């Protein structure tokens, strides 16, 4: 699936990620990639395609199926001056390397009073809606948001995917990247990317659509559901502001507060399980900080507190949707 490289060729989300990693590999001779099947195959989805041909085993490691050792070895490499991109074949398998992430990697800077920092990027395909069932659909970012020392990002567009990935690979801290696999090859979101090097700084939300009546805050695939809901709301005479936070940790609260000053109404959307998901965190922060601006109870639309089931009707039943967001936002608007 070679993409012609004329300057104004639109590129998909996957290509954006691929370019970001390839360009950082070229820029930073101390950068290494590790993961399962990322060499000759180029990764399950092809994000590392071509890297092994260019850099060889010295910088691109097909690893045994050992998530704990992959993260731990990467941690050692970073401790000793390298920058490591770790690919989880699916973000769901991060559970098998969990201890090495939350206890070894995340805390290294803290434990050493700053002597050590771990510039590691752990990235992988994430998200539901694609029939991946329980173990190929997860958005488990809340586990890591509750584990101090980790930054977390989740891009929703090719432009952001490339810019955030580059920022992550230049960040001196461990960053976990939730790549939305359903967006990898989505035609509708392809866009022309700048020819020159650019980053999207971590910790900056983006107002995707301006509006006055309600603020819908989300990230990942639900940005599109929120935009869909905004369409429906327009039909009902309400104008929704849609914010894509892009970075989960650290959160850009100011952008959201600014919006709430205008709309006075908040809907948070998140496909992770409801309890202790990031939607609750976001809602809490806004309630604490912007209570006075809120004219209606803020609302979360999240996955139900269930795993992601396989069969389509069940899967959609438990996940946020345009309809659910619309309904919730309407209720908030009409409060």
């Amino acid at each position, binding site marked *: 699936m070679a993409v012609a490289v004329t300057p104004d060729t639109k590129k998909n989300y996957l290509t954006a990620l691929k370019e970001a990693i390839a360009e950082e590999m070229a820029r930073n001779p101390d950068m290494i990639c590790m993961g399962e*099947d990322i060499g*000759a*195959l180029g990764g399950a989805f092809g994000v590392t395609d071509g890297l092994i041909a260019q850099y060889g085993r010295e910088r691109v490691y*097909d690893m*045994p*199926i050992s998530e704990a*050792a992959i993260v731990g070895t990467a941690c050692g490499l970073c401790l000793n001056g390298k920058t490591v991109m770790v690919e989880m074949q699916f973000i769901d398998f991060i559970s098998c390397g969990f201890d090495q992430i939350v206890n070894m990697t995340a805390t290294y800077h803290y434990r050493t009073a700053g002597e050590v920092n771990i510039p590691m990027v752990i990235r992988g395909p994430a998200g539901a809606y694609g029939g991946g069932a329980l173990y190929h659909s997860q958005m488990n970012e809340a586990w890591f948001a509750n584990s101090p020392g980790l930054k977390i990002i989740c891009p929703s567009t090719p432009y952001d995917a490339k810019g955030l990935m580059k920022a992550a690979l230049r960040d001196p801290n461990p960053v976990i990247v939730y790549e939305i696999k359903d967006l990898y090859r989505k035609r509708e979101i392809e866009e022309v990317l700048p020819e020159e090097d650019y980053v999207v700084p971590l910790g900056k939300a983006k107002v995707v659509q301006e509006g006055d009546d309600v603020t819908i805050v989300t990230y990942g695939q639900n940005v599109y559901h929120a935009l869909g809901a905004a369409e429906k709301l327009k039909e009902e005479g309400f104008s929704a502001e849609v914010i894509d936070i892009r970075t989960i940790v650290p959160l850009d609260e100011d952008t959201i507060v600014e919006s709430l000053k205008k709309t006075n109404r908040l809907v948070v959307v998140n496909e992770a399980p409801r309890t202790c998901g990031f939607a609750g965190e976001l809602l809490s922060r806004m309630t604490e900080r912007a209570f006075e601006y809120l004219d209606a109870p803020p609302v979360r639309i999240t996955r139900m507190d269930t795993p992601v089931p*396989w*069969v389509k*009707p069940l899967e959609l039943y438990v996940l946020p949707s345009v309809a659910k967001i619309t309904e919730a936002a309407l209720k908030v608007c009409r409060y």
Partner: protein
Amino acid sequence: MATTTTDTAQTSPDGQSSPGNRPSDRLTPDDYRELLKQLYLARYFDVRLIKEKKRGRLRGTLYSSHNQEAILVGSLYGLEPMDWISPIHRDMPAFFLKDFRSGWDNPDRMGMTIEEVCSQVWGKATSPGRARDNWSHIGSKSKRIIHSTSMLAGTIPAAAGVVLADRLNGLNTVAVTYNGEGSTAQGVFHEAINFAAVEKLPVVTIIENNQWAYGTPTHYEYPLEDFARRADGYGIPGLVADGQDVIDVYNKVMQAVEHARSGNGPSIVECKTFRAYGHGDHDDDRAEKYRPAEEVEKGRKRDPLHVMKARMIEMGILTQEEADKHPAEGKGASEVTDADFPPEVSEYLSRGVNFAVKAPLPDETEGAMWVFKEGE
């Protein structure tokens, strides 16, 4: 490193496999005929699914067991009905092959019906798990099949647990777990086998060494040629079987099973085989990116159907004519037709497929059900 398939029938570390003393010596000609039929069925199941998938009738990824069927058929044939198994992604036929000796249509059989397995593949409410999780992630408490998650090697400790419970209840069962060779790198593989060895639990870990873990060759997974050598770190038997030969698999697995059932603890049985297609059907067209064509050709050469037929001809329990009647062996999924299989095989599966196709989808509201069990 390890990329060739070897006939290792002679290399078994203990004397059990010397002629006259092998488990297979107890097999009758009828057993051989049954085993051959099961091989056909496993192959037919796989090619039929490949075709259905190509026609867009199935969701999810199909991990073909093509060319690896002898491992399932040979390992399951000698088990007792109450024994446990835990199949993994490439082992779909195991779900119905379990306790198949009790009769393909025996309603009391301790294995899944073909209708149940097909219902799972088609994602229907009649699947044992009501299609809440996908493909090989089914199981059955009553039929003694452990449900896997996707996390590789993750069912080995559960296998240790179920047989420990049986032992406490005075039941002498064995658990057979299936794992790709790549999965043996997982930490939980080590933890579970270590504990099973400490506690002498009757757990037999089968390693299906098909030379590849997705796009990664064995020499990046493990430093030695034989993954059975992992057993040496726990002082337990590590047998190597020719995974293309039902009878050799049967012999080695039965040695391990008898060792386990006699209270001597766990074993590892590595079965050398070769993955015929891509890792999953999504990978079929690009596997050549990492896997040289010659290797594929070489790896596919010893079709288990062919090996079995040759054995039977040599033993005088199959004529060349009979053998040639249904020439499925050596053919790819796209080349083979129903005529290449005994009719009872295609009919059996068709029954399952027809049932599944007509079966209802689960109701969407089931998505929110069974998160917790209500207390009594």
